[in-house]
């Protein structure tokens, strides 16, 4: 309805291949960025930042990471929180042992370490497919759970096994208030989203998708499975590792063993199923959904005046998540992102239905 595409013709491949080829989309995106960077910091409350926006930004980053592997490369993982844990503990230890290091460097190093570990656990993917891989990634989950709980070095010999981080100072800028954290995370997320977008529309992204859609054909036309799969594991784990470090430093601040357990892994998976596999936008939707649902469930009964116990709420949450997963897999396997795309297509064709 709002699209006026006449005259938006492309005379070069660069213009044709740009990220948002339609002017109206670019305008919309610019508006969204202004809102996110200017309006939100002015108007949002600390509660909103801490319970909604900050977790949303970090989990989106993690969901993008998982989506690169599962949604784009078709390699299932149900143990991705393990790589978050690797990222978090790596960042903790680096920051602890080399305190003068810039936080950005710490993040990148943590991501690289997570990427290395991810590649290690991705090696079985070269020999096995789909379902088998699920178990391999579970191994990563349970092994890291154990590793960080039991090997004292990782937790700096803290007696409780829990760790806490020092405040983050970067270029003389202390990121301590929720607003600052929000702005920093938003910037990080945008950069990482752009990078992910570039990767998936580059030849490596096509190699991933080819492996996902038809692996034998992909190999026959010259794609090396080793490179495609391991690079997907590496990039994915890098993203998730960075997200883990941010989760630890910016959201939790201090955390106990098992903060990155199977439940978190499964939640990541649910984000991309509900949001949309093989869609970066879907990662945003999925993360928003998973972050908001419990809050809504907590608020709703109070709003309606029906008292429900907290235990009950957490059970309800499980049931709703479970039912939604099945619902989405049956009704819209491509998730909310597909609904968005369909809506957009409808607007472009308005008033025609197709």
């Amino acid at each position, binding site marked *: 309805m709002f699209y006026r*595409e006449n005259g*938006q013709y492309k005379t070069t491949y660069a213009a044709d291949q740009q990220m948002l080829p339609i002017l109206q989309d670019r305008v919309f995106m610019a508006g969204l960025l202004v809102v996110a960077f200017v309006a939100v910091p002015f108007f949002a409350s600390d509660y909103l930042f801490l319970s909604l926006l900050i977790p949303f930004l970090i989990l989106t980053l993690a969901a993008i990471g998982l989506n690169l592997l599962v949604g784009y490369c078709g390699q299932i993982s149900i143990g991705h929180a393990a790589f978050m844990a690797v990222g978090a503990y790596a960042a903790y230890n680096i920051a602890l042992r080399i305190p003068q290091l810039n936080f950005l460097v710490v993040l990148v190093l943590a991501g690289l370490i997570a990427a290395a570990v991810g590649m290690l656990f991705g090696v079985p993917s070269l020999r096995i497919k789909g379902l088998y891989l699920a178990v391999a990634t579970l191994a990563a989950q349970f092994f890291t759970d154990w590793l960080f709980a039991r090997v004292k070095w990782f937790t700096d010999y803290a007696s409780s096994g829990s760790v806490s981080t020092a405040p983050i100072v970067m270029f003389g800028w202390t990121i301590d208030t929720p607003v600052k954290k929000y702005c920093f995370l938003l910037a990080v997320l945008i950069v990482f989203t752009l990078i992910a977008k570039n990767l998936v529309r580059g030849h490596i992204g096509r190699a991933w998708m080819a492996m996902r859609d038809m692996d034998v054909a992909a190999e026959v036309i010259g794609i090396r499975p080793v490179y495609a799969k391991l690079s997907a594991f590496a990039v994915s784990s890098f993203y998730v590792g960075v997200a883990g470090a941010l989760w630890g430093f910016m959201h939790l601040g201090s955390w106990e063993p098992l903060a990155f357990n199977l439940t978190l892994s499964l939640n990541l998976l649910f984000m991309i199923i509900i949001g949309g596999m093989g869609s970066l936008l879907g990662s945003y939707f999925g993360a928003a959904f998973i972050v908001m649902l419990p809050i809504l469930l907590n608020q709703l009964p109070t709003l309606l005046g029906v008292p429900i116990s907290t235990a009950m709420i957490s059970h309800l949450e499980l049931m709703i998540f479970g039912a939604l997963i099945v619902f989405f897999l049956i009704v819209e396997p491509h998730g909310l992102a597909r609904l968005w795309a369909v809506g957009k297509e409808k607007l472009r*064709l308005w008033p*025609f239905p*197709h």
Partner: protein
Amino acid sequence: MPVDIGTLDTFPKLLAHHSQVRGTLAAIREKDLGVWQTWSWGRFADEVRALACGLAAHGLDHGAHLAIVGDNRPRLYAAMCAAQCLGAVPVPLYQDAIATEIAFPIQDAEIGFAMAEDQEQVDKLLEILPQCPSLKRIYFDDPRGLRNYPQEALTSYEKLQDAGRAFDAANPGFFDGIVARGVGSDAAAMFFTSGTTGNPKGVVLTHTALIDRAHAAAQMEGLSDSDVVLAYLPPAWIGQNIFSYAQPFVTGYCICCPESAETVMADMREIGPTYYFAPPRVLEALLTTVSIRMEDAGTFKRKMYLYFMEVAKRVGARILDGQSVDAGDRLLYRLGDILVYGPLRNVLGMSRVRVAYTAGEAIGPDLFVFYRSIGINLKQLYGSTETSVFVCIQPNGQVKSDTVGPAVPGVELKFTPQRELLIRSPGLFREYYKNPQATADAKDAEGWFHTGDAGYFDPDGHLKIIDRVKDVGALTDGTLFAPKYIENKLKFFPYIKEAVAFGDARDRACVFINFDMEAVGNWAERNNLPYAGYVDLASRDEVYQLVGDCIAKVNLDLSQDPELANSQIHRFLILHKELDADDGELTRTRKVRRGYIGERYQSLVEALYAGRQSVHVEAQVRYEDGRTGSISADLKIRDAKTFPVAAAKRAA
């Protein structure tokens, strides 16, 4: 604004001018390899120069002809101009014609050179090569599939240009000299028009004629080098060529060639032309797809669409004409523009259209008003190959659905006593090629071109074309009777499929009607009217009522026009069978053969004029399953509602 012509009296000189003044602006775009590849005016000039020199090197002389066979392609347009540079005459031929059809022009004009688009066209030319001894060289644009063709006559576009560049280097000053020597009175192009009988005639148009007309129209519409045109019709038709060659040369605007026939709609949406031309059949087909696609929409969207189209019908055209409309309607239209008209224009690729023309045949008022009501400035124009198109154009704000507007500056119009339209204009053709007899028949000594069209000026001085002059007759009171005009008016109603009007040399007009089975069938279902078939419906009073209403509307319309008010339809009957080309009642192109029908159904005609209320017929009919049978029926004859002329005049 179009350029000041001044001394730029040929197309090659105009090209040189553009390449100097707007050398970096886009001259021609083609969607190729996925993006819009662009030739600037400078590049265009370079291509033409190399081609012209190449053709010169191969022996194309002043006055010789270059056949151009293919779709809208930048290189083919460059070839047109290259020929003109040498004083040779490009002859664009229809790309979808079969081999034997293109043989005639090549033989007729003793064409020695041809530029073909691709293998398909080359194959056709090679096929007729034995019959066309004059044809020496065939150039081709797209080499696909031609790599191993052994024929010596074949040369690729690139090779031709290479030869040209070598020639240019060896003969510096040749090109500039020969372009400078060209004069406006040289032939610029020859278009073959398909006559209804006999061989096609080659219409020779001079540079002056084409440039003058293109310039006059461009000035009238204020075209400039920021306009954009999509070239999607056959370039061998002057209706495309004038917009994709002559006018860009006088204004410097950019033309765009679609990627392939399948992608025209998509390419149009991308380009969003600002200046658009479409014959009524194209507009009709577009409207049909709009309607069909809307049928599939959900209830809400469909209701919304219908509601706002009603609003548009009421006020849209008036708003476009700048007339006063009350505030409520204006607001409603504004809302409709957001919800329906704007998106619709976008999907049709017409968001940016400033000026759109339709011509070539009569356009139904509903169709015409549809486009205008959604804010597209669609106008009618009148012209033909012989007149370099632009004879009459409806000026902005003075658009009517049944006239073609006043004469474009520079054109003189008059009528013979038989109401045949005569035209004198700088845009007239020089001659029919090698056909002095036909030339003399068409163009008299004083330079008036006899169009063969009958018409008159309406009170506002707009030209109204009603029929071919040979079909126009007169009622016994001496007033004009134009059967085709009346029939067309009837056929614009969806319920009426065919109509046959009688009245020549009679005291009043009467018609036979064939209704449209599908439309009336649907109507009957909607109104819970059970029926067994065409014959059954044809005898129903309800159907007579429906048709009678249509005729009444036509009569009301006719009564507004002092010239035609006496031709109001007084009586009508619905034929018991559908007119059929197999029975000789229609031509193969589905035109009614009025004379034959009049003879065959003489008893019916007589009954109409005898004032009887019914007439008995027995006739052979063929059923859908192939069986034949005879029906005998009493056809009803009804009087139609007519309107007094005087009252109409008061209203007007």
